[in-house]
């Protein structure tokens, strides 16, 4: 596993994501509002869209019919093509978490730099 310095921490604003090419890997790095960084493969297993071009939102949850709120806001990457959604913390699909996952990577902040281990 190699140590790959991606960028300065400040280059990824809070609550946003950025795509990096690491060797042959395309990776989406997410900086959540709580300052935690996560990295997932930039590839939707459905039809191959780039997840980095989608939006970062929460998981829609309903307390009752038509009473909706977000759960884990900012934790889910929504595919720009067909809205498949994945939890950036573990790569699990919102709707089929046991069977549909995307690859996750270790990412850390070291000396104010975002470092990916892959």
């Amino acid at each position, binding site marked *: 596993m190699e140590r790959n310095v991606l960028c300065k921490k400040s280059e990824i604003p809070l609550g946003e994501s950025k795509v990096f090419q690491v060797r042959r890997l395309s990776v989406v790095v997410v900086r959540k509002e709580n300052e935690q960084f996560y990295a997932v493969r930039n590839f939707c297993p459905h039809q191959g869209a780039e997840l980095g071009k989608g939006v970062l*939102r929460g998981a*829609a*949850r*309903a307390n*009752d*019919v038509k009473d909706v709120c977000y759960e884990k806001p900012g934790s889910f990457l929504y595919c720009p093509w*067909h*809205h498949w959604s994945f939890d950036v913390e573990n790569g699990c699909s919102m*709707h089929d978490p046991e069977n549909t996952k995307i690859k996750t990577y270790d990412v850390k902040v070291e000396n104010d730099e975002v470092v990916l281990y892959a």
Partner: protein
Amino acid sequence: MSTLVNKKDQKVVNRSKKIPVIDCDVHPNPKSYEDLNPYLSEYWRDFLADCKWKGVFPNIPAMAIVANAGHRMDSIPPEGGLGCSSLDFYREQVADRYNYANSILFPDSTFMLSASPQHEMATAIASAYNDWQIDHWLSKDSSLRGSVVIASQDPEMAAREIDRVGSHPQMAQVGLSIHSPYGGWGDNRYYPIWKAAVRHGLVCTFHVSVPGGVFRPGPNYGNYYPEFQTNNGLTYQAQISSIIFGGVFEKFTKLRMLFVEGGFAWLPSVMYTMDTHWRNLKREVPWVKRPPSQVVREHMWFGTQPMIEPESHEDEKHVLDIMKMVGLNNFVFTSDYPHWEFDAPHAAFARFPKEFKHQIFYKNAVDLFGLPNPMDTNGTN
């Protein structure tokens, strides 16, 4: 010949020859609409007499093939009257002939009541039909089960009618039209109806119908009867989607629905499409917790009529494959007697495996309606 029941008020179920049948779509009629008068208030009796009311077909277009009020030409009893207006003649022509264990009645064309813009009149007629049904059919044959007829334009009044007669021991379902009077059946305006149905343990059964009002919206209405028949499935598809994504079964977890006369070959496609969009677009309908296809299998049943009648063994396999994709537990036999589209059970299903016929002809209906199993030697019917 072994028999399960042999009471005076019931027909005999023959276990040694033909597979018993539970027909989940039979449409009794009064001899004439004047038979409803004793069950109407003076006001509504005068109102209907003065406006020369002739039944509940006012919005049906003139289609030559269904000129006989949509009835089989031979369904009129020897003594006259409308088709399927004599219990004795019904027994002779259908129930005894095809070895029926039970018949689920849905008073003829009352599913058109919801198309009436006059809510109060429709409600009064629905109520009269319920009392007439109990007096003239249910009380005369304990193998019969009835429908609570409602006018769903006013869901609160409909719920009161369900409460009024829904606890009758022979009431099995609430009768509904597949066309909803205001918005799709998934709309929350209809919650009082679902709530009342669950309260009384009744299945909600949707029958093919016509849209209401004075205009004919959309291509699924059509100009010709073949067009009407062909396009019925479109309305069923739209309503099932409305009910699923409206979250009706998330709110009413004990609710069961039966869809009759809409066919079923389109169901696998609808289930697949609903699952696909649910998975992708759940953000918009997060109250739908399970894949729609699973919700369909747990909460929805489908009548077999109009049956796809296979013309070869290869066709038979294809029809079975379609039904397996939906779930073989989700189909019940429906004949639609006395309507023109009637399916004779042992003819329409002649090519199918025996075990499958046992399931379709009575086992699934026993489960859906909580009826006694006609093959149970200790059971009574």
